[in-house]
């Protein structure tokens, strides 16, 4: 560990201000400007605009009614509940399976591991719509797999795997979520110093105790960080689920979509729903990162 000592020489306020401005205007900082411009135009401004508009009704009168609706109308309350449950379930499936796949992948010889991991990057490049249709062809009511199973076991057409219910939707999203988690956990597993495991065994820990007292606590912060990405992605999940079930399932993201573009058009209401969705996601992320930081510092 090398320490860098920085000596701060105090200067008069005015001179420091000039120096700060001068350093800010150095050429390389200018390269950031296009990024900041786009960030402002397409992220900050729309967010603020949406938040402000959610506080007015369609006639332009200030009101909290849109938020009161979100927490009182059964369709919205159900959407919030469904979104939280769906995002949690999909994150857990992706998180747990992805972790195990990563644990196996890092044990492979590096050539195979890199091949596998690059295969895993593939789903993330695919459009949600394409994936939805692929699953419909494979697993839809009359999809290839359902037909094969029905034929093989001589089952009536009423028996099939239902892609259009929650388990089906979670499974389709696992197609994105598992590789995502695998990629982030593979990095975590690779950073796990194998001598930690050896040190624990050397000190008398049996294999299960090594997992209980060393491996799991050391991996948990990375796992929670991976779960954050999963949860945030799943709260906003939209395209694939829309393609699969349309409006048949009640999710926050679908409610926002319907209030922003369908017959139920009500932009301020959509804004209020979006603010609530962002708040829930933000709260969950803050909770997970607080947990991860606590675990990173604290002992068992």
């Amino acid at each position, binding site marked *: *560990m090398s320490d860098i000592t920085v000596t701060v020489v105090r200067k008069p306020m005015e001179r420091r201000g000039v120096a700060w401005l001068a350093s800010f205007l150095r050429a390389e900082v200018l390269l950031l400007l296009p990024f900041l411009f786009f960030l402002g135009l397409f992220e900050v401004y729309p967010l603020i605009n949406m938040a402000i508009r959610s506080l007015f009704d369609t006639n332009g009168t200030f009101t909290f009614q849109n938020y009161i609706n979100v927490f009182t109308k059964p369709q919205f309350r159900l959407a919030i509940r469904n979104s939280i449950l769906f995002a949690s379930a999909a994150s857990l499936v992706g998180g747990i399976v992805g972790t195990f796949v990563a644990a196996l992948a890092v044990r492979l010889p590096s050539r195979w591991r890199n091949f596998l991991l690059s295969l895993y990057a593939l789903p993330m490049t695919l459009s949600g719509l394409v994936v939805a249709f692929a699953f419909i062809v494979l697993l839809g009511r009359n999809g290839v797999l359902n037909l094969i199973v029905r034929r093989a076991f001589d089952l009536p057409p009423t028996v099939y795997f239902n892609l259009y219910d929650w388990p089906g939707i979670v499974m389709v999203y696992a197609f994105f979520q598992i590789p995502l988690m695998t990629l982030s956990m593979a990095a975590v597993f690779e950073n796990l110093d194998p*001598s930690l495991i*050896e040190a624990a065994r*050397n000190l008398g*820990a049996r294999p299960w105790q090594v997992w209980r*007292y060393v491996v799991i606590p050391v991996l948990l912060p990375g796992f929670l960080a991976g779960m954050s990405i999963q949860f945030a992605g799943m709260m906003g999940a939209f395209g694939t689920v829309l393609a699969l079930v349309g409006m048949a399932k009640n999710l926050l993201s679908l409610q926002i979509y319907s209030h922003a573009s369908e017959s139920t058009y009500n932009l301020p209401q959509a804004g209020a729903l979006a603010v609530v969705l962002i708040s829930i996601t933000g709260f969950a992320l803050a909770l997970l990162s607080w947990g991860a930081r606590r675990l990173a510092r604290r002992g068992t």
Partner: protein
Amino acid sequence: MARVKVEGLTKRFGRVVAVQDFTLEVEEGELVSLLGPSGCGKTTVLRCIAGFERPDAGRIIVDGQVLNEVPPERRNIGMVFQTYALFPHMTVADNIAFSLMIRGRPREERERVVKEMLSLVHLEGMEDRYPHQLSGGQRQRVALARALAMRPKVLLLDEPLSALDAKIREELRGEIRRIQKTLGITTLYVTHDQEEALALSDRVVVMNMGRIEQVGTPAEIYNAPRTPFVAMFVGTMNLLPGRLESDGRFVWKGVAFQIHRGAEIHRGQEVYLALRPERLKVAASPDQIPPGHNRIPGRVEWITFLGPIGRLTLRSDGETLLADLSSDEAARFSVGATVWIHFHPESAHLVPKEPERS
């Protein structure tokens, strides 16, 4: 405390033979270093003793008990790793008490041992720190305390100082020796640093390419290397290839030297004459050479200032020789000067060209 016996240890990784027929006995309370370049198999020997590697052949015996089939967690052998391997999510106290926690020892005992160990490694009051709040030297002290907390029969140290600064390294080296002597614990110490091995050990095992080159006290290793590898690896050595013509007469490129050592070498054998740079003397003219000294003419090629000493790079009949003089003496010579290189017959040592493999 315990005696460690390694008998005919062989370990292969795929087709690569990491350790070949390694045999060593370590006495109770002895500190033995395994010294060699990276990849020489020294760490593999240590890992076999700790139980992290399965020997392909040979036996590991501690206090008369064969350990080959005993899992690492039941061997009661302490180990200190090069990367410290402290548990990052645990405090210093929890790290040190880990082995006692695993064995379900009561809280009072754990606290007492933590206090004892912290005072042994001079880290009193650091109980509640986390590893990331410690310096490298402090981390390695905690790692040492953790390895000693369960009172192991044997202590293994795998390059424990190689990640540290030179100054801390030297300081901690002394500490390790002091603690090892205080506890009287049988210790195996792996290092690639010959100075460290010589400074610390009761005996040094020099290894190369999976085999033992020589076992001996630091003085034996330094003064009487048995193979060219040991001569070149430990310290700096001038090696002159030649032949032993008759007892006490070594001939190099037609120049004969009187030699006292090397009785085990047969007449006519191809050998190296090994000369430490600090044993070589340099004179400006032949009348300054004491009687009985061997002499060869040479030329000063370069002078390197090394603080207390000045190292002369000399050229004689196509051969480069290094001579360490005191800085003052070295200052009397200049680059390009023609000089006489001379040495006492006792200063030279003969090393067989073909290493003896027993």
